């Protein structure tokens, strides 16, 4: 809206502007209606004040038929929203090439007319929840892979090479199998009445869960948080396990023997002597898994429900369903920032050169 923007460039923002600004608005909207831009203008303003889009398009449609002024009355007659200072302030803000709006909005914040930054209304407040959800799921998956992976790495590292190599194949095969294939496998196994449900039934887990009252009847696992975490843990397990394993392999068994021979109980010797030496591997594996988890998109989309989508999923829907590129980019920036910080930590702590494959 070139004319309007020029007209309100010096506007002080205290009262609704005068007739000239409205005349400019009318001219702009008429032009926009001809070139099919009205909806786009409305769309941009709508991000800040919901409902503004329909008001812009309706005004543009109606003003097209109005030939002469006074414009202020005509425009306000179509919709009283034009008689609000906030509407004009939004137009002025939106006219700038740079705006903090998108970045604020993905943190559930917005800028008031007065310039102060406040929280958005409750029903639009979702992004902080999604950020926490993403971090929470990533943390949980990292923890699970560590709990599951550490003992396996320990055993692989202490077994004779020959048998260790055979067991290692069992770890490497899923590592090599495509993420999509493994997600596919889970989404099929987790169907209602599918293999996992059957297995739970046969092993009596379903019965047990019914008994303690966690469950009523057969479980429905597909499209749940449980499935998402399960599948992600499965996919990430080798990423946590392998770095721990490669560190453990370098630990000489003579340290443990020395501790034992000096009288330490096994658990104590293990805790005081062996464990600390594995920490670099634990840090490397967990950081890598955590970083990779943050960006998960496919697995939550396919085996999770709508409440299990993580940031990447919302980037996709902002991009492909809402057509809000600004928001997609802002969410991307948040995700990228989180990743890069952790990547930096990883690089300092572990060293990127130490990254190994297989």
């Amino acid at each position: 809206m070139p004319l309007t923007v020029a007209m309100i460039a010096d506007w002080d923002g205290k009262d609704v502007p005068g007739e000239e600004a409205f005349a400019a608005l009318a001219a702009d909207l008429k032009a926009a209606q001809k070139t099919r831009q009205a909806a786009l203008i409305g769309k941009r303003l709508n991000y800040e004040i919901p409902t503004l889009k329909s008001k812009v398009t309706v005004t543009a449609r109606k003003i097209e038929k109005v030939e002469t002024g006074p414009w202020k009355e005509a425009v306000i007659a179509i919709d009283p929203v034009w008689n609000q200072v906030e509407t004009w302030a939004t137009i002025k803000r939106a006219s700038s090439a740079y705006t903090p709006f998108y970045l604020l909005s993905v943190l559930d914040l917005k800028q008031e007319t007065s310039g102060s930054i406040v929280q958005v209304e409750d029903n639009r407040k979702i992004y902080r929840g999604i950020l926490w959800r993403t971090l929470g799921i990533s943390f949980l998956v990292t923890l699970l892979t560590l709990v599951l992976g550490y003992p396996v790495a320990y055993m692989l590292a202490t077994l004779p090479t020959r048998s260790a190599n055979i067991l290692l194949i069992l770890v490497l095969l899923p590592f090599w199998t495509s993420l999509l294939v493994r997600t596919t496998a889970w989404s099929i196994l987790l169907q209602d009445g599918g293999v996992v449900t059957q297995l739970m039934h046969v092993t009596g887990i379903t019965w047990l869960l019914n008994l303690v009252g966690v469950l009523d009847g057969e479980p429905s696992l597909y499209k749940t948080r449980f499935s998402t975490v399960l599948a992600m843990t499965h996919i990430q397990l080798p990423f946590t396990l392998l770095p721990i394993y490669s560190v453990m392999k370098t630990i000489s068994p003579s340290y443990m023997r020395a501790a034992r021979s000096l009288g330490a109980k096994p658990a104590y010797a293990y805790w005081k002597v062996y464990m600390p030496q594995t920490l670099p591997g634990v840090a490397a594996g967990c950081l890598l898994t955590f970083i990779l988890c943050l960006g998960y998109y496919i697995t939550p989309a396919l085996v999770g429900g709508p409440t299990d989508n993580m940031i990447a999923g919302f980037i996709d829907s902002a991009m492909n369903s809402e057509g809000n590129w600004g928001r997609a980019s802002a969410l991307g920036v948040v995700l990228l920032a989180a990743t890069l910080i952790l990547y930096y930590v990883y690089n300092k702590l572990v060293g990127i050169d130490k990254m190994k494959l297989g």
Partner: protein
Amino acid sequence: MAAPPYATRSEVVAHYGLRVYVGLVLLFLIAPILAIMPLSFNSETFFSYPMPGYSLRWYDDFFTNNRWQSALRLSLVLAFLTTLLSTTLGTLAALGLVRGNLPWRATIMAVLISPMVVPIIISAIGMFFFYAKLNMLGTLPGLVLAHTALATPFVVITVTATLSSFDKTLMRAGESLGASPTWVFFKVVLPLILPGMISGALFAFVTSFDEVIAVLFIAGPEQRTLPRQMFSGIRELISPTITAAASVLIVISTLLLVAVELLRRRSERLRGVR
């Protein structure tokens, strides 16, 4: 392997407890992959055991249905070109990186590896906007370049690993015997780093063959790769043909894994690493 004879009772419990635990974890790792394969031979469209009968109808569908076949073909072409390009670029980058006199080495390495770490959806959005400007959306070169960016880090890592244990005196020996640098490269360096290159190439192949997010963003409507076909298949309509496709991919990745393992052992033997 039994617990050592001097072990205390609690140690024996810990010893066997650990074995059972590890067994269960390994089962968890491998079971989903193994469980999916028999389902692909199911004669009915259910996804549960016991199966009413066996048939090859889903494989038949996979190998005769035009959609799956053209997807498979496109994926193979794409993965092949990506492998070629990323192996070349990645190897050259690794050769440059191991030179001792390179300034900013760590930073360059971190940047080179970043596509592996940065969420693909972010790279994909960036590529979408960038390729739009270059008119490369929906083109094969666009897809190849996108996948090359994602696959090259794997080559850099594997080749760098091979080079780090590479004895540089061999190069000097070659040069002192009068060989030109290029001659030394092809006769001395290349054969020694070849295993690293090949395993990097295999990683690159798998990366491209598996990738769906970048494809979703930058491919044209008729450019349906195998993962894209599977993705929309699961999202919209689970057909048992997907289990057949998944099984085929599992077999391929198993073969690639065996290839990489053999190479790694051969290379360690050659370089005398113990």
